């Protein structure tokens, strides 16, 4: 069943009047709610006859070549494996507006849950100094969370299932300052949760850059990022 509010959001999404931010959240919600997805697809399918009225236009000769050039630097992503909201796991599914609200705050909630669970003690020496949400620059979607501690270690939570081809690794980097340049914090064989010990560096600071690149295994040959950047983000100091 769709409520009036849901109907408004479905028509806003399909007609294109929804704001970009709301559209991103709505798409995340669709990934988790097959019923909603079916209702959206149904309306989109009905309206699509209007797209078919557009008279095909000439495509400039060089356009495919430009696209092809970019493919080498664009790793393919895997299937989305969404974190189910904790409440859904406990109750075995729920519906309605609450699901929407949960989905909107899902990534934050999942991250907080993980960190709280992982550290166990709450406030204490294992509180992160900074946290960075790393996003895919192409579409702004969050791909990983980095939690950096005072002892040079970092926790990584992957939110996107990056495809790591044979012979490649994911490498995590930070930029403590421009003079030092990018420093490797370690490698991961695949998208996963992990703790990396990291080299001896100054305490991480707000605004510090973190990124994940795709490198030849076992690690970047130059000690600097050489492969495509999958996700990047700037650290913030958590409110504790």
């Amino acid at each position, binding site marked *: 069943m769709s409520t009036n509010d849901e*109907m*408004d959001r479905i*028509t806003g999404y*399909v*007609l*294109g*009047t929804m704001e*970009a931010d709301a*559209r991103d959240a709505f798409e995340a919600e669709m990934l988790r709610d097959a019923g909603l*997805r079916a209702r959206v*697809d149904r*309306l*989109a*399918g*009905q*309206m*699509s*006859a*209007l*797209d*078919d*009225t*557009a*008279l*095909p*236009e*000439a*495509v*400039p000769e060089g*356009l*495919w070549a*430009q*696209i*092809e050039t*970019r*493919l080498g630097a*664009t*790793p*393919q*992503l*895997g*299937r*989305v494996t969404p974190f189910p909201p904790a409440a859904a796991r406990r109750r075995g599914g729920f519906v309605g507006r609450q699901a929407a609200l949960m989905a909107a705050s899902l990534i934050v909630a999942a991250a907080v849950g993980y960190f709280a669970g992982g550290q166990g003690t709450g406030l204490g020496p294992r509180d992160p100094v900074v946290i960075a949400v790393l996003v895919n620059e*192409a*579409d702004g979607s969050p791909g990983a969370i980095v939690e950096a501690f005072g002892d040079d270690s970092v926790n990584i939570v992957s939110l996107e299932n990056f*495809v790591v081809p044979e012979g490649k690794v994911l490498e995590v980097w930070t930029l403590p300052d421009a003079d030092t340049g990018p420093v490797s914090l370690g490698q991961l064989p695949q998208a996963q949760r992990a703790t990396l010990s990291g080299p001896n560096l100054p305490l991480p600071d707000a605004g510090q850059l973190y990124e994940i690149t795709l490198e030849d295994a076992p690690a970047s040959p130059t000690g600097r990022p050489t492969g495509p950047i999958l996700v990047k983000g700037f650290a913030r100091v958590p409110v504790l």
Partner: protein
Amino acid sequence: MLDRTADEANAWMARVAKGDRQALEMLFRSEAPRMMAVSRRIVRRTDLAEEVVQESFVTAWQRAAQFDPERGNARAWLTTIVRNRSLNMLRDGARVDHHDGETLEALGDRVGDAHDAYDRLPDRDALKACLSRLDETKRRSILLCYVVGMSHGEVAAKLDAPLGTVKAWIRRGMSALQECMA
């Protein structure tokens, strides 16, 4: 004929998900002319539509594994990507509005394009029949949003009606449309 093209597009997407660039090129050759046209109705300029199509095919490559043939065909999936990217570009006024001092209105007839899309719908199409049953104000509002990507505010200005009224037209119009097509 249409179904065969749709099946072909789905088969190409399955190959793209395995890293097959040739399959993406086949999809490009087949779909890009239509994507250009859908985008240009929204962004108005050929150069911007080219940029949208380029970004959309790179995204399709990147996200190929997320395409689910159970949900519909690859052409519909690509169209959604193109429409959303076009809308983002349109709403990013810095990109569209201020080029050489041109305004959107100077870049062709948005109202005319929206109306042409309606005129060109095949008479046997349920959408045509159901749109034709709506009041003209509701029909125009819906077409201006969907076909050329106008916001509620732009429709209100174009039809010289209060924003709340336009929103109500669209809500009631879409509700009637879906009932009619059910």
